[in-house]
């Protein structure tokens, strides 16, 4: 029976909303792709990315995309917690927070007066650290006096502050998604704007790169401490994550999360943070993705005008530290007021290594979907766990871990789940993935190649990350292509080479009180 169809509303031409002008812009629209009988494969060549390098080394990737008249900006600086050392962990994250505090003209009514107060409060902070370092017992009265002095001086400086003005300007202009993130090896600053206001980003971001002022420093330090409490110290998953990488990486900075240690957060100083900014930030160390409804010529003009005059900085020092070879299984236990969780990680090479696509394929075969090896065994059939995930990390540039995480189900213990995971990996070695298993993953990957183009924000992050890691934004698409060619023999070979017990670090969270020598740092 063919049903009845009627159009319920016919406005003729769609109504332009009140705030927008009637003039029609040139419609930015990609070529319509006709339905085909096979899933299309992309290699990035379909994307019309305009690459533009300024004389000072700053790189822009400009990609017009169809859709609403909005444009997304992602500024990428290749600095994160891998560039830190003990005593100053979390410093890259500090820079990220403080870059929202404004510049010499934004967020202030008198930057000179502020600076004079900064010098005084930073001197008091130096004295405070000196008192804290006295042994056996720091002078608590002196500590309190210095803390109060810093608070009073920061309050005095606040008289010159226009709070959150950087935010205000963007928000007033309709910005969405204003934020930033610091990872192990990258810091990204991102926002989307209505496209008629795109120029505002160039003005503000150039000013922030050139003239930042790290005001409200000690108050923001406390905010960062609260962030650490929220993400790690009150979170079972956060605590276990920190303990897992801290045990697997004893030398390489992948052992410390980007949030940093609490004691470092509470003792970092403004001059240290400033120095870190000057060492790692500069136009020659910044790549920007601009994706959306934007005229590339205008973007290039504004890039030249606002970022062009900024002097390049000295090249950022490379990260040369390498994690020594692991010579045996490592295990760590975290005690916390929560039910058990399990993480197992095996040392693997960096994401640019030829084995990386095979390892990504392996993660898919194990857990991506209900009909996968680990999900079937742990969750569906034996019901030892309620969830299982797998992936690689914590970064891309340096050798990391292939991690499997599971949520054990009572009454099963984390160890029982752990053993089942090892058995299943062994079974994969002896019963390699079938053509059907591989085909399903490949089909899903091919479709994800199309889906990844649907979001401006997603595309901006992908191309800027690819450029940072590979020096070529197209590699993100080629990497998917390489995954497609991974064979069953490749999977077995990877299992043989990387999944030996001596390369393994196991972290288990259990309910209970922390002990003083708990390496998990549950406190």
């Amino acid at each position, binding site marked *: 029976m063919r049903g009845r169809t009627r159009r319920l509303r016919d406005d003729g031409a769609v109504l332009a909303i009140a705030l927008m002008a009637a003039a029609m812009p040139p419609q930015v629209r990609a070529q319509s792709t006709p339905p085909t009988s096979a899933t299309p494969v992309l290699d990035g060549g379909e994307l019309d990315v305009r690459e533009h390098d300024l004389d000072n080394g700053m790189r822009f990737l400009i990609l017009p995309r169809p859709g609403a008249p909005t444009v997304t900006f992602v500024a990428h600086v290749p600095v994160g917690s891998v560039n830190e050392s003990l005593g100053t962990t979390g410093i890259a994250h500090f820079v990220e927070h403080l870059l929202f505090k404004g510049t010499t003209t934004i967020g202030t009514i008198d930057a000179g007066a502020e600076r004079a107060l900064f010098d005084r409060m930073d001197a008091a902070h130096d004295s405070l650290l000196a008192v804290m370092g006295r042994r056996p017992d720091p002078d608590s009265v002196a500590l309190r006096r210095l803390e109060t002095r810093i608070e009073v001086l920061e309050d005095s400086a606040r008289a010159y502050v226009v709070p959150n003005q950087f935010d205000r300007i*963007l928000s007033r202009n309709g910005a969405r998604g204003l934020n930033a993130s610091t990872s192990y090896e990258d810091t990204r600053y991102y926002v989307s704007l209505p496209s008629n206001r795109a120029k505002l980003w160039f003005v503000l971001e150039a000013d922030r790169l050139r003239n930042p002022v790290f005001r409200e420093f000690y108050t923001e330090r406390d905010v960062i401490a609260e962030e650490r409490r929220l993400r790690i110290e009150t979170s079972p998953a956060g605590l276990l994550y920190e303990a897992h990488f801290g045990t697997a990486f004893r030398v390489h900075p992948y052992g410390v999360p980007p949030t940093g240690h609490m004691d470092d957060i509470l003792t970092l100083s403004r001059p240290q943070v400033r120095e870190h900014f000057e060492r790692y930030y500069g136009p020659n160390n910044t790549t920007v993705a601009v994706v959306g409804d934007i005229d590339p010529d205008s973007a290039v003009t504004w890039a030249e005008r606002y970022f062009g005059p900024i002097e390049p900085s000295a090249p950022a020092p490379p990260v040369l530290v390498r994690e020594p070879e692991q010579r045996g299984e490592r295990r760590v236990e975290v005690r916390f007021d929560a039910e058990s969780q399990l993480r197992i990680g095996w040392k693997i090479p960096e994401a640019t290594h030829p084995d990386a696509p095979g390892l990504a394929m392996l993660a898919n075969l194990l857990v991506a979907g209900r009909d996968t090896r680990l999900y079937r065994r742990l969750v569906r059939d034996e019901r030892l766990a309620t969830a299982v995930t797998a992936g690689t990390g914590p970064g891309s540039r340096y050798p990391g871990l292939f991690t499997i995480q599971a949520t054990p189900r009572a009454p099963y213990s984390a160890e029982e789940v752990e053993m089942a995971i090892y058995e299943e990996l062994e079974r994969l070695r002896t019963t390699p993935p079938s053509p059907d298993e591989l085909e399903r993953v490949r089909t899903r990957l091919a479709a994800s190649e199309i889906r990844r183009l649907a979001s401006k924000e997603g595309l901006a992050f992908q191309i800027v990350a690819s450029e940072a890691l590979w020096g070529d934004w197209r590699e993100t698409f080629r990497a998917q292509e390489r995954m497609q060619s991974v064979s069953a023999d490749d999977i077995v070979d990877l299992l043989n080479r990387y999944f030996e017990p001596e390369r393994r670090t196991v972290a288990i969270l259990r309910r209970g009180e922390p002990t003083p020598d708990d390496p998990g740092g549950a406190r």
Partner: protein
Amino acid sequence: MNRFLLLLAFGPAVTPTPTEAMVPMSFQVPTEDAVTVEHPEGLAAVEALEFPPLAFAPPEALEYEVSGVHVFHLEDPSLPLVDVQLFLRGGISNFPRDRLGTISALPYALRNGGTIALPPDSVDRRIDLLALQVGVGQGGGGISLSLNALTHRIDAGLELLQEMLLEPRFDPEVVEVWRIRELERLRRREDNPGSLAFSEFNRLMYGDHPIGWVLAEDDLAPDRLSREAFRESHAEILCRDRLIVGISGDLTWDQAEERILRFLEPWPECEHELPKPPRPELREDRGVFVLPKALDQSTIVMAGPSGIQQGDTQEYFASRVANYLLGGRGFNSRILARIRTEEGLTYGAASVWTTPRRSDGIAGAFTATRADRTIQVARLLLEILGDFRTSPPQQQEVDEAVEEIANGYVFAFESPAQIVSRRMVFRAQGLPDGWLERYLEGLREVTAEDVRTAVRDHLHPEHMTILIVGDPDQLDSGLATLGPVFELTAEGEFHPPVDPGSDPDAGPRSPR
């Protein structure tokens, strides 16, 4: 490690902020090619900017009635993808408590439980081999289902979806996987303080109302999750009159219509009306509930009843502006500007002002802070809420808020699926056509006086229920000054005062 994270978004999120003299109209803007001109920097450069009007004709989802079902369609051939969204009226609020388990599990069972002809594994394999994305969810008074397919696989995708929805197997093994997962989730309910706090707060505020219900062991008893129980709920919800359909992407209406007709053909008519959701009786008395958890950071949630419902009324639009100014605009909201930017006492804080379509909502705030400042921050939140009544926003502040929202309005049209989904929600909620446009007009009409009235009449710090999940041993002093104190258990039971102190009013009392 984002610099900002909202702990939980209760209502429609809007944006952050304003500055002075953003666009002086008399300023002569240098032409684009005048590269020799000395360009101002920083704030001066910002103030010198002028922006052309945003020329944009928002794409509109068109509404059709197909075989008696409302269907929204928006074509977008830019990628070879098609999104199909289904919304079925009928959620946990429409059924008694003894149906909570089945209704909660229904979306999962439809997605994973196989079909009469295909066991669960076969369905999963077909989904993988067709590269489909099938999503299910619950909320907004109904069940949501979605299908994303490459254009050349949309027919096979719709055929499979139809079979999954209309001929479900409700495989007992799959249901059991869901059941034991939920039991384990129940065991882990206290692991994360944030989610525990919000779930407990809803229980305190709404009591024995669907919003306050927490899935318990009784709800997960095997006999409540029998195949017969699923079939009963399935028959009541998966019928034509409950359904709203959205289709967007790489299909013209003619192409879409043909497929929707086929998809709808076997859907049965509904046999009877859905039971109406009960009206909640919200807790109105001040009370401070402490749920002990030995952590260095406390979660604080506070709110009281608000009588504003979503609709085309002055007070509704005023409440949206008020909520935005109070805690919905990020860093420049009153709450975050004070507690985070000025005091450094939190990473995230926001207001809560819910405006359900057909019942009263709640208004208040939430945050997380270090344990030894918990009471100080709770007081600060109450003070900010109180100040919002005694020092309400002036017209300029209201105008700036509306300007921020209006300038970002274009983000409501970022994807065809988003546009279609919004129309479906409006239809499901019984909101009029053109509600989005009306919403913006309504905000533009809001005066400072409207905001004052809405705040005065509906934001009542003195009647708020306050929940603290934290370590009683680490709290700063003065808990009893916040109100009568009760110790709460994670099972929702409460006991007389934790810390009556010297406050004569802090003795045991009925909490509701």
